[in-house]
């Protein structure tokens, strides 16, 4: 069964809604959102509340539910 979640872009407050299958991975979600906002997927992490969503886990593993709000957060690297 598919669910629909909202992804908030923490960099500008924009939102997008995504339809997800139980086996969609967190990496797929980040890639889809990053592509939409012209970002580098590897430079981001995704959170639900205070929990970091691990890239390899699926929608089912992560326990995502319909109407969840996830936030895309930059994960910078300096040198």
């Amino acid at each position, binding site marked *: 069964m598919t669910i*629909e979640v909202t992804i908030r872009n*923490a*960099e*500008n*407050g*924009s*939102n*997008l*809604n*995504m*339809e*997800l*299958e139980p*086996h*969609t*991975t967190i990496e*797929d*979600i980040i*890639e*889809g*959102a990053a592509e*939409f906002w*012209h*970002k*580098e997927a*590897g*430079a*981001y*992490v995704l*959170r639900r*509340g*205070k*929990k*970091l969503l691990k890239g390899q886990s699926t929608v089912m593993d992560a326990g995502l539910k319909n109407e969840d709000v996830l*936030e895309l*957060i*930059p*994960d*910078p*690297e*300096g*040198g």
Partner: protein
Amino acid sequence: MPAKITSWNESRPRERPPPLEDRVSNHRWFTEKMNTVYRENRDFLPLYVQRIAEEKMRNHALEGMRRSHEVMGLMMGGRFEWQGREYALTRDVVTTELEASEYHVRFDHDALEGLFESLDDLDFDYSIVGWYHSHPGIGCFMSDTDISTQEGAFNMAHHSALVLDPVRREMEAYCLRDGKVVIRPMGIYWDLHQDPYRG
């Protein structure tokens, strides 16, 4: 299995005048280049940093200096528009435990929940307007790693990178313009009755 985007909404910068000129200043850590662009753009700056946020970044950089480590965090605020021109306010900064050395820094992924908690503690509707990090003793510039970060995550017009050298006591801000890194004019602002240079 790709995720399917069904709808979206783009947020627009909010209409709000920038901080009043008599509540904006340059900073004693500004390099000559920073002071020059500050003077040239003083009437309208694309980046204003609240003095408490500036102090937090500077103290963080000084604390890292004692361990000869770089430090890093995110600049939190909002993007605004006034008379057709866009600017960003940095109202606060957030950070967490870091994986850091003398020449490298990133968030410790085991400590990201601490970062998320700090985001939830902010008492305003935030946008991430940039990031800061330190270069202890090597001066302010954007390394190849820094530029990759800027291009990958902070490539919007309102995004900035602030670099601090706590040994030389220098500070410079940067942004991307037409794909190139350039100095970003910036000022420190304070709220009414909080003038750091009086009293």
